[in-house]
């Protein structure tokens, strides 16, 4: 398949692996931000191609993983209401709230629909005028434009029976939060290619400069990731700390201006809770006052307070790159995709689920 197969070529993968091995002279720790990249690294066993000096840590870029428990509980509460059709992306349904998940609500008769796009929720709302339709608008900058467009259209078409449970987060504040942690081990970042396709990469330049850390905007195919690692390691070895763009076939420096415009129309920057990490300042997108009538939290007021129970789960440390999934005592034992202790074991983009599903032959 064009634009896919060329980036899964074994000869070129070997070439990049050799180039990385030739470049590395000491130990380095690099973090890929995006869960899609983590998934590719595990799926193609890329760590097997890298020299032992190079360690990969997996970042917080899995939208399912970082959605706070309180919000999952709200989703469960709203989805169980009799007159509600609750629409969600598929992999949110398995994420455990404090006592249940959306699948359980569905099995008890809740009308929960898996949709592929927020625009599908608009159609469902138009087709069911007597029902309240709620869309679980989660994700990073990648899902923000489509979610914003759906909210914008809901307002312009005056659709009264559709609202949005919003849990949008943004990447740069999370990078700063990781770098400011006293236990931080990350020496270079692979930034998320699709996030930068929307937002561009100017906002990463001050981070690279201030924290003296190389950032390479990187794609998701195995060759993208190997090349991104190579570019990052080369900067580290040469003592440079710049923003470079490996994913130039998709990312321009200024990003997608139309997409940014619709995000700015509908959303404003707010503080957000990240599951397993806590609140990160200025790290979320919330609805602007002009759109608050479409906020499901306003339409269905309810409060949930979640007290993290003490378990062996270290998903918060995994999300911050402080630990690897297989360093958790519960990994593969009391925590599996069938009975996850933390959200990182749920989503296919969660680091723990990726490690569990894509075991290497040696492990």
């Amino acid at each position, binding site marked *: 398949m064009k634009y896919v197969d060329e980036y899964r070529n074994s000869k070129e993968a070997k070439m990049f692996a050799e180039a990385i091995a030739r470049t590395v002279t000491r130990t380095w720790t690099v973090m890929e931000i995006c869960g899609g990249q983590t998934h590719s690294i595990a799926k193609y066993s890329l760590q097997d*191609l890298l020299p032992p000096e190079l360690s990969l840590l997996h970042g917080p870029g899995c939208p399912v993983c970082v959605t706070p428990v309180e919000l999952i509980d709200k989703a469960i509460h709203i989805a169980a209401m009799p007159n509600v059709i609750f629409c969600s*992306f*598929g992999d949110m349904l398995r994420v455990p709230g404090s006592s249940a998940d959306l699948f359980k609500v569905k099995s008890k008769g809740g009308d929960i629909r898996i949709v592929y796009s927020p625009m599908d929720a608009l159609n469902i709302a138009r087709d069911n005028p007597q029902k309240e339709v709620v869309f679980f608008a989660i*994700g990073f900058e990648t899902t923000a434009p489509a979610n914003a467009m759906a909210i914008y259209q809901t307002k312009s078409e005056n659709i009264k029976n559709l609202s949005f449970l919003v849990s949008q987060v943004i990447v740069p504040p999370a990078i700063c939060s990781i770098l400011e942690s006293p236990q931080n081990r990350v020496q270079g970042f692979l930034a998320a290619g699709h996030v930068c396709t929307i937002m561009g990469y100017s906002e990463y330049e001050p981070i690279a400069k201030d924290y003296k850390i190389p950032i390479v905007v990187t794609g998701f195919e195995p060759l993208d990731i190997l090349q991104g690692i190579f570019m990052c390691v080369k900067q580290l070895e040469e003592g440079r700390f710049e923003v470079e763009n490996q994913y130039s076939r998709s990312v321009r420096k200024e990003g997608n201006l139309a997409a940014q415009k619709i995000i700015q129309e509908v959303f404003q920057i707010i503080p957000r809770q990240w599951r397993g990490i806590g609140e990160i300042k200025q790290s979320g997108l919330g609805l602007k006052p002009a759109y608050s009538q479409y906020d499901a939290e306003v339409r269905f007021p309810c409060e949930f307070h979640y007290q993290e129970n003490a378990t062996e789960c270290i998903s918060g440390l995994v999300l911050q790159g402080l630990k690897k999934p297989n360093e958790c005592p519960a990994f593969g034992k009391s925590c599996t995709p069938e009975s996850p202790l933390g959200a990182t074991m749920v989503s296919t983009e969660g680091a723990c689920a990726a490690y569990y599903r894509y075991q290497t032959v040696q492990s």
Partner: protein
Amino acid sequence: MRRLLSLPNGAIMNLENEINFSMDALNCPLPIDASSFITLAHGGGGKLTQQLIEKVFQPAFNNPELETRHDGAVIDFPKGKLAFTTDSYVVNPLIFPGGNIGSLAINGTVNDLAMCGARPLYLTVGFIIEEGLSMEVLWTIVRTMKIAAEEAGVKIITGDTKVVDKGKGDGIFINTSGIGIIEHDLTIHPQSVQPGDAVLLSGDIGKHGIAIMSAREGLGFQSEIKSDCAGVSHRVQKLFDASIEIHCMRDLTRGGLATALIEIAKTSQLSVTIEEMEIPVREDVKGACEILGLDPLYVANEGQFVVFVKADQAQQALQIMQQDPLGGSAKCIGTVADSPEGTVILKTKIGTSRLLDMLSGEQLPRIC
């Protein structure tokens, strides 16, 4: 690929076009004055039940055993070992690109018999119908079952119909049980698999799961991909006719190729290595999987199987499979080794290796 809204209303006509029914056969045979929908009375055992049997089921499944209208079928059975299986079919939507619940119900059970190494002979059918199902949809399903049964060379010799209240079923559920005869001395089972065996795959994978997903209301994603729903017994029979020493077979249904191979590896306590490069997946199926974040290795099929054969017969078996009109893309995808026990190893396109594991549930479309 294109994105459309939902499918259901036009779906019946699409299916009819594919199967090339004559218009006469399409017309539901029940008289106009009868209900155009199934009612509870159709399952009540009275006149409407009789009418349903006489006008819908008997004309479609016509054979002397069914004609006796007895409580069960009495059949002559050839000498030899017997294979017996049962399966229940629930699918949403009932009619999808490339098939419907009726074709699934016949082919699924026929294929289970074929995987036991049996030649399928007889089926039973149980219908659980939800009140309100359109008679035309029922007729479409029954007609498709007739065609699938004829293609597989099986007779439907006894059956049952129940009607449940509106809201207590999903349109229609079908159970079929099947009997087949084993006409060879091979023991076809994972424990017959030997180190060195070749693993052959009957054709390209993933079409059924993607077709269902694209037709499912609410996902808002449609493609031209049709289900591969088909009987495999003729293809298997050709291997037996050529005296291929088959050690094990498995049809690829829910869970896809990966799950079938993992089950065999675990039961046989051997190691199966497959090459990602050799696994045939059509471009449009690959594209749909890439967009939805699905792994084709785990996507459902309804007309494909894997067969484990002695290595020295692999080429001959592969040629036989490829000569079948449904088997053009058949491939040898891997081999069997002693260890590591109970594992399936995928050699990826970029030259690394990893273990395949069963999924904990259905694959779900990803977020971004």
